[in-house]
């Protein structure tokens, strides 16, 4: 066995995870190698010294001294109360609305966003990998758009109107939810 390996086994020994087989190997090596034997007993000495618990006990009367010191300390502990269900609900709705709003915006304006990401050297590679997914997404959007156009003769205009209304409405909804959540949090 090489000394490097013996050193690793010494570390395992100190970690208390040495197997019987490894212990025998290490034992054999340190009887042969003076340098490793010296290392082993040095490690052993450190461990013994650190484990020595003599004079490691707190002095007598320690508790009394501490209690005397805290006797006059008056603290108004701020006890934590569990978050009410309404707050959790408001928070979840707020997050959902916000994510939904962002998702809708990204769907509608995916081409400008993709273009922006492609121009940025840091996001270029990632954006290129996203192109097939975005194309697929566009196909779905166009599909929906076409179906809407078929459904309503004036489809194109309706889609533009929906686009113009949906974005501000969702943003306002998210803001209101967030405001409610913040307000309730402050009241706690």
């Amino acid at each position, binding site marked *: 066995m090489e000394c490097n390996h013996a050193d690793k086994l010494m*570390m395992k020994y100190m970690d208390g995870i040495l197997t019987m087989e490894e212990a025998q190997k290490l034992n054999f090596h340190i009887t042969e190698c003076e340098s490793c034997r010296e290392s082993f007993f*040095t490690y052993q000495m450190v461990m013994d010294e650190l484990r020595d618990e003599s004079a490691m006990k707190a002095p007598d009367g320690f508790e009394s001294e501490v209690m005397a010191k805290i006797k006059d*300390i008056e603290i108004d502990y701020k006890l*934590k109360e569990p978050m009410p269900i309404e707050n959790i609900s408001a928070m979840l709705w707020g997050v959902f609305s916000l994510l939904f709003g962002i998702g809708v915006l990204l769907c509608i304006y995916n081409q400008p966003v993709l273009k922006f990401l492609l121009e940025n050297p840091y996001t270029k590679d990632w954006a290129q990998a996203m192109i097939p997914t975005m194309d697929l997404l566009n196909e779905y959007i166009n599909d929906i758009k076409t179906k809407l156009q078929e459904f309503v003769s004036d489809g194109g205009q309706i889609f533009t109107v929906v686009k113009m209304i949906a974005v501000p409405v969702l943003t306002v909804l998210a803001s209101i939810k967030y405001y409610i959540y913040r307000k309730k949090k402050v009241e706690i």
Partner: protein
Amino acid sequence: MEDYEIIQCCLQGKKEMFEELVSRYKNLVYSIILRMTNDSEEANDLAQEVFIKVYRNLDKYEPTYKFSTWIMRITTNLVIDSRRKQKQSTISVEEMPYEPSTEGGPEEAYLRQEKSNEVMDALNALPDMYRIPIILFHQQGLSYQEISDVINEPLSKVKNRIFRARKMLKEYLLNSKEGGIYGM
């Protein structure tokens, strides 16, 4: 009674219950500080300070960690802060009083004391970032994960620091061996 139940009692105003926590953890706190400062008087003062700090911040204790982990974190941080404020290193072993052991003859006691001083000297030479994990591991018997929770560092860093600390201690002791008197 569990630690957490005692803490809840203290938080509800039963101050006297805190004495039980002090009693449970005084040796843990004191021994860590004593290993780091090598001064029993300073260790006593700092250990009391730790418990006062714990008392003041009881409401901030998160039961996701063991109470011992939390108190050890406060202890190590307080000692580091205290040393930083003092802006001086800990007492060297030469300044430590010689306490002859009652076991064995005087010569044996002297040799044992010298050996102990050598190790303590090596330990004192370690920077805190290495000394704290190795004390927590070998003296307090904490696992790597528990040390990681105490010092708030990733597990990989803890393992690496303990490994490095052992190597540094060994090198220090082997280098000082020529001048030292302990034998193998």
